[in-house]
């Protein structure tokens, strides 16, 4: 399988890929700082790199919130419904 080997290759170079990604992300934020904001319909649209910050925070919040929700209230064993149906 040729495709499998390509994926294998990519995985073996994952630190390099990570560096490339980080550079790319830095470039995105830089671009956002350099270019003037197209709209300022919301106050945060004027802040450069807000979307990056927001994405990071939103992701972290979702991870922790859902985990909290699960452990606090919603998680049950997989056979929870079995014994009554």
């Amino acid at each position, binding site marked *: 399988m040729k495709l499998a080997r390509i994926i294998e290759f990519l995985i073996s170079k994952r630190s390099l890929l990570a560096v490339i990604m980080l550079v790319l*992300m830095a470039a995105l934020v830089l671009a956002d700082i350099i270019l003037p904001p197209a709209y300022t319909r919301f106050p945060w649209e004027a802040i450069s790199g807000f979307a*990056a910050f927001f994405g990071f925070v939103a*992701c972290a919040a979702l991870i922790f919130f859902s985990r909290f929700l699960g452990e606090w209230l919603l998680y049950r064993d997989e056979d929870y419904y079995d014994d009554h149906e």
Partner: protein
Amino acid sequence: MITSDWIHPSLVLIAGTLVVPLLKGRAMQTWMVLLPLAVLGVLWLAQPGEYGQMAFLGMELVTGRVDDLSMVFGWVFSTVLLIGAIYALHVNDQVQHVAAFLYGASALGVVFAGDLITLYVFWELMVITSVWLIWRRGSEVSFNAGFRYLVIHAVGGVVLLAGIIMFQFETGTTRFDQIDADGPAFWLILAAFMINAAVPPLHAWLTDAYPEATVTGAVFMSALTTKTAVYTLIRGYPGTEMLVWLGAFMTLYGVTFAMLSNDIRRLLSYHIVSQVGYMVAGVGLGTALALSGSASHAFTHILYKALLFMGAGAVIHMTGRSKLSELGGLYRYMPWTFVLYLVGGVSISAFPLFSGYVSKTMIVEAAAVDGRALIWLMLAVASAGTFLSTTLKLPYKTWLGEDSGLRPQEAPWNMLLAMSIAAALCFLIGIFPGLLYALLPEPVDFDAYTMSVFLKEMQLLLFTGLAFCLLLKYVGGGPKISLDVDWLYRRGGPRLISATGTAIVTADRAVRRVALGQLMRLTSHMERKHGRDGKLAKSWPIGSMALWTAIVLAMLLTFGVWR
């Protein structure tokens, strides 16, 4: 129903489906591909207008209304039928094929229905055909899930019917345009549409049933039921303020519960809820841009969600496992499925160059134009969450991550072909959004590929990815299920019913004891004098019948005669 420039596509499909049980093997497979192609051909020939009028109970039915909005859905439904049929070619179960095609026919019937009665008939038909796609999985779990699905939609159907009746009574027509009734008719019809659109808390049927459907059936289901509901909402309820908030809430609800899911198709089902949330919010905004966004998002969503369900289905089909906690390291064995799935993943996450990008940004933009800051933020969080679970968590835990020791084959050719077609369409729409926009009812004044939109979206997504990589060990999961609203009727409801049942029985007994006691006291006096061994209060079969007769007669006489 048939005129020179209009053949009802549902009719074509139903007629064609009747042939399916007669066919076998290669002939059936050919037929299954030809039939959706024929429907596409019929749609190609369709001209805008209204066709198939019939009189029924003094109302005028319009079985075929062709306009731009119904055509958008018509096109995508028949396309996904073709893709789904190819994906299911290897399945040797005619019941499933018949059910799937009839299900598609009913969904088409709904979008081309020009009046509420026709809509209702196809709406119900959609339920009773699609439930077979769940039951044919053949397990007890899927039977129970299908049954709950059936019950909820039966209730939804009754609600819809009640709404239609009141609508007809109020407005004197059953024509299906924007629902401008007020009072119960408005709310009942809206509630029925919302059940099918899986708006929380009426969504649990979806996440309960879809993961238990057959591998191929889930592909059709993911595409049709919720999107017909989106169509009816666009048609009937544009600009309903409540829907903006419900939609935004849906997007967050879906992504949150998706994070908790262990079953891969349950995870994807919660993302249906989340994605439909965007469309519902768009309907609620009600501006031309928002409605175009909803329609086009439904279009792209059907394609990429089908692709995701096909990818997940291929994994289930080849490994027999569906739990994230039992999967892992499959990339060596199913690399094509992996890559094609990822195309779906980046599409749903709205990466530039893929289909989700050109439609979702439109709804978000519409929210921004409307100046709704909170809605905008909620939708943005949901975007991050979508990327997080469908494109990062699920593929990571399935194809990469810890090796589960599974050594499956690559999926069969027809599955890969179907996925490739869907992936190609996702890509095509992402690159040439004009093709999609041209189908929409309103001219679209929106360009997704401006630097500002592009930068924001890329930052949002890539930094979500960064957070995922850093916080990987905190991501929830494991062999657990999470409770949802369905708990209310799976556990809460039965408990409540048995409690009320006991209460009713006790109350009934008490009332009867008191009533009979009174009666006995009354009659025992008579009895001591007149009866030797007779006891009036004893319940003889004939005695009680005759007694009731006497009671009713006495009632009528006292009320009516000796006033």
